[in-house]
Every structure is written in C-alpha cells, then in structure tokens.
C-alpha cells in the first residue's frame, strides 16, 4: 500500500506541472480557434464553442481597413531565409568537423575552441560592426544579407555537431581508403559524406529551429517590413495597439507552427542537437 501512495504522489506532482506547461499552449490554441463574437478577455479561459479560423486568417493576411500587415509575407521571408542558411551552414559544419577530427593539425584544438566560443557570445557585442559591414557590402536590409549572417554565426554550433558525430566514425576506415589511394576530398566524398545522414539531420534541424526562431539578427539586419522574418513581424503585430489580442495570439501560433511540426515529427534529432549544445558529445 505504501508504494501506491508514492506512485499517487508522483502522478499528482506531474499533473501539477502538466497544468503549468499546458496553460500557454491551451490559450494559444483555444484563443486562435474562437470566433470574433466569442473573443473576450472576460472569457479567455473558456473553450471555443465551435471551430473558427477568422483570427488566423486575419493574422495571416492583415487588414487594410484596420491598417496592419499580416504575417504571410514574413512567413515566406523566413522560409526563403531558413532553407539556404540551414543547408549552407550544415555543409560548412560537416567540412570543419571532418578536418577537426580526421585531419588534425598543429593548433587545431585551439582553433576548434576559438570557433566554439562564437556560439556563446552575446551578439550585442558584434552587431554594430555587423551593420556597418553589411552596409558596405550592400546587403544590409536584404534577405541574402540575413542568410550570410546566419551562415557565419551558425558555423560554431554546426561544427560542434559534426565534430561530435565524426569522432564516432572509426579512423581506421579512413586509413584503409587512404591506402587504396583516396585523397582528402575523395575520402570525404566516398567515405564520410555517405555516413553523414544522422549528422546532417541533427545539424539541419537544429539550424532550422534556431534560425526560424531568431529575433535579434532579423530585428537589426532587416528593419524594413518587406524583408523581415516572421519573429520580427510577430513582435510588430503584438506591439501594435490596433491589433486585437486574439489576432496577436493567432499570429504567435502561426509563427510557432513550423518548429512545432519539426518537434513533433523529428523530435529525436531536435533533442540530440539540444544535448550537443551543452557540449557533451
């Protein structure tokens, strides 16, 4: 009998925390689904009476009459930005990880540590020169400029992910192909790259989520609404006094949707990236 009391206590504690974690999700989904007639701050905890997607469509297309921009344009900006940035930074990470594990040279450990430091710095310490440089390169305020920024500042984490992955690939395998006459690039192309799918899955899912969710770079590099990523647009939507709260919350759900889908369907790889972020390979 004593054991079942402990069990009961465990479930009670877990239930309390479940409420804590679920409340924001509940508000996000329930509010988004309500019709405008139902939406009232007095009844914000009530379940929606029927399914209604008006809040979502208003958050998506905006309203000329009320004078605010919807999130659709920014959603596509984010898509346009996140795909190339994710692929390119994963390729860099793969190459770097390959060199840093299989072709180590004098000082390569120091270089690795110095690359890693870049993933922890507060970006406030580089944004002023970044803006000046992007202006000089004529990519300030553009999506290609933002892609460049995410590729460069994504190098540390993707290098770390691939380094931790390639360290598990036995070096003997590579020695063998080297005896067979393969060179640096041949080994990468024929031995390492075909083995890299799990590494690419982890690195790309990690980069996808963090670039999609990024706010600071979008805010500073693309001040113009036409090329803003969705997080910046959502923040503008939510900061506007003319936009009803249910539309803001529906906008939050639209912004959250791609990473949530990734989490639901590819959660295993997301978790692995999360663990690598804490440096334990």
């Amino acid at each position, binding site marked *: 009998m004593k054991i079942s009391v402990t069990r009961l206590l465990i479930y009670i504690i877990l239930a309390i925390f479940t409420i804590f974690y*679920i409340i924001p999700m509940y508000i996000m989904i329930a509010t988004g689904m309500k019709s405008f007639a139902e939406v009232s*701050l007095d009844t914000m905890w009530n379940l929606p009476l029927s399914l209604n997607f008006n809040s979502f469509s208003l958050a998506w297309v905006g309203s000329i009459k009320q004078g605010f921009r919807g999130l659709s344009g920014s959603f596509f900006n984010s898509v346009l930005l996140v795909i190339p940035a994710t692929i390119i930074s994963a390729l860099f990470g793969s190459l770097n990880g390959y060199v840093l594990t299989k072709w180590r040279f004098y000082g390569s450990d120091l270089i690795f540590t110095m690359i890693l430091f870049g993933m922890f710095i507060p970006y406030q310490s580089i944004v002023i020169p970044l803006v000046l440089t992007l202006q000089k390169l004529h990519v300030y305020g553009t999506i290609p400029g933002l892609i460049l920024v995410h590729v460069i500042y994504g190098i540390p984490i993707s290098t770390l992910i691939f380094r931790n992955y390639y360290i598990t690939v036995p070096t003997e395998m590579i020695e063998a192909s080297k005896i067979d006459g393969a060179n640096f690039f041949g080994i990468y192309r024929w031995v390492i790259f075909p083995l890299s799918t799990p590494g690419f899955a982890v690195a790309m899912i990690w980069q996808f989520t963090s670039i999609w969710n990024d706010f600071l770079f979008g805010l500073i590099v693309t001040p113009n609404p036409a090329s803003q990523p969705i997080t910046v647009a959502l923040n503008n939507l939510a900061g506007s006094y003319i936009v009803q709260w249910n539309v803001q919350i529906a906008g939050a759900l639209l912004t959250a949707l791609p990473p949530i889908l990734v989490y639901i369907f590819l959660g295993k790889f997301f978790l692995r990236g999360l663990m690598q972020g804490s*440096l334990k390979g």
Partner: protein
Amino acid sequence: MQIKGDKWTPILFITPSIVAIGIFIYGFIGWTSFISFTKWNNVLPDYTLVGFENYRKLFANMRFQIDLHNTLVFTVIFVTSCLLIGLLLAVLIDQRIKGEGIFRNLFLLPMALSFIVSGVIWHWLFNPGSIQMGNIGVNQLFEKVGLNFLICGWYTDPNIGIKAVAIAAIWQFSGYTMALYLAGLKGIPLELREAAAIDGASKWKIFYYITLPFLRPITFGAIIILGHISLKIFDLIVAMTGSGPAFSSDVPAFFMYDTTFRGNHFAQGASIAIILLLLVSLLIIPYLITTFRKEA
C-alpha cells in the same frame, strides 16, 4: 588519432570558416571595443578617443545599475528554478511511470518555440487587466479556482517586474534541464543502485550518495548554459514587457539595443555590449577550457 598525409588540403578547406569567424567574431569584438572608447554618441560616427569615459558614465547611470540588479535577480531565480524543477521532473519520470514519453515531450516542447512566441502569450497571461475589465489572464484563473491571494500586478508591478519574465523563461527552459538530467540518470550503472539497495540503503540515501554525485557534472554544465542564457536574455523582454515601469524588467541587452539603435548612442551601446561579453566570458571560457582539456 588522425590521418597522416597531405597537410595543406585540410587546412585550405577549413580556412574560409576560420577567416569568417576571425573577422565576424573576433574582429568585430575588437571593433566594438574600439567604438566603446570613442565619442560616437550621435547619428554620425565620431572616432575621437575618450578613454574609459563611456564606461564611467555607464556605471554611474541609474538605469544600468538597475539592469545589473535585475540580471542578478533573474539569473538566481531562473537558474535555481530550472535546476530544481528539471531534477524533480527527471527523477519522477525516471520512476518507470505510465506515459513517460508524453510527459517528457510535453515538458520539452516550449524549447522549440521562439522567445517572441512565448513572450506574446505570457504578455497576455500576466496582463493584470484594469478596474473596468476586471481580472484577466492568470489572475482570472486564480480568481476562478479560489486562489485570490495569488492575484497581483505581475510585470506592471515594479516590485515584481523581471520576476514575471523569469517565470516565462522557466516555463521555456526547465524541460531542457529535465532532458539533461534524464540523460544523466540513464547513465548511472544500475548495478550500483541495486548493490546499494541490497546493502540496505534507503531510497533517499541512494539518491543522496549515488545519484546526486553522478549528476554533478550535468548540474555544473547546466549552470553554465542557463547562466549565460540569462545574461543574454533579450527577445523575451522585448516581446513580453519592454523596460517596464521604473525599468523593473530592463536588462543590459535591452538597454544596449535601446540606446544604440533607437537612441544612436553607439559608443555607450558598445560599452554595454563589452561588459555583457565580459560577464559571459567569465562563465564560458573556464568551461570551454576544462571541457576540452579533459577530452584531449
């Protein structure tokens, strides 16, 4: 182990990354430091050197003093709560309970969201409403379930301010700490716990003398990661509260953005950024060195 052979090809291939990091991280940090010693506090650049003048002004600035205090309060609440909640949840979930996966996935889900998304939602949850409106958000919920003593002004109350933001941040990151601890718990050899149990050790003793020491490196790592996140916290503040009444939810990262990009005080912004970088470095550099010295 590494491959012997052509030495220069690999170096050639890693060079673009080294150059990019060299310029965009280290070069830019140097550039920002340089700006922090100049007179550039207007729209147009002015590179006249003024020594530590910007830093002197910064530490004399009331807003910055409040910011440092807020950061300390936020860090203490955020880090300890994440560690305690994370450990508790990990230990409970590790008890071979039903629905283990469901709990774990739910608790970790907020990690996948942008701070802007959670900021927008928590802004409305912690909105205290007004006299005309009555209670809304979390306060309304408390009223409904009879927990009236918990009703308060949240981020609109200068005495709470940053602590309300900390709750949202805990919501987002405690699942992450749980995942770290869960991975650690799986790594404890079962025989060790079983042997102790056979020797008659109680569950609490096993937890205290075996489990906790095993988890120590994870706790250490989590403190570093969470600590540096809390020093850098920015997005959540922007979306949820802004500076708040009497700067009660202001932090250095937000002050930096505000003064640089809204106020055109570039040199002052640069000095805040450098202080922020120094604080983060104090945490991260020893961690990087110890972690990778051990591996090599």
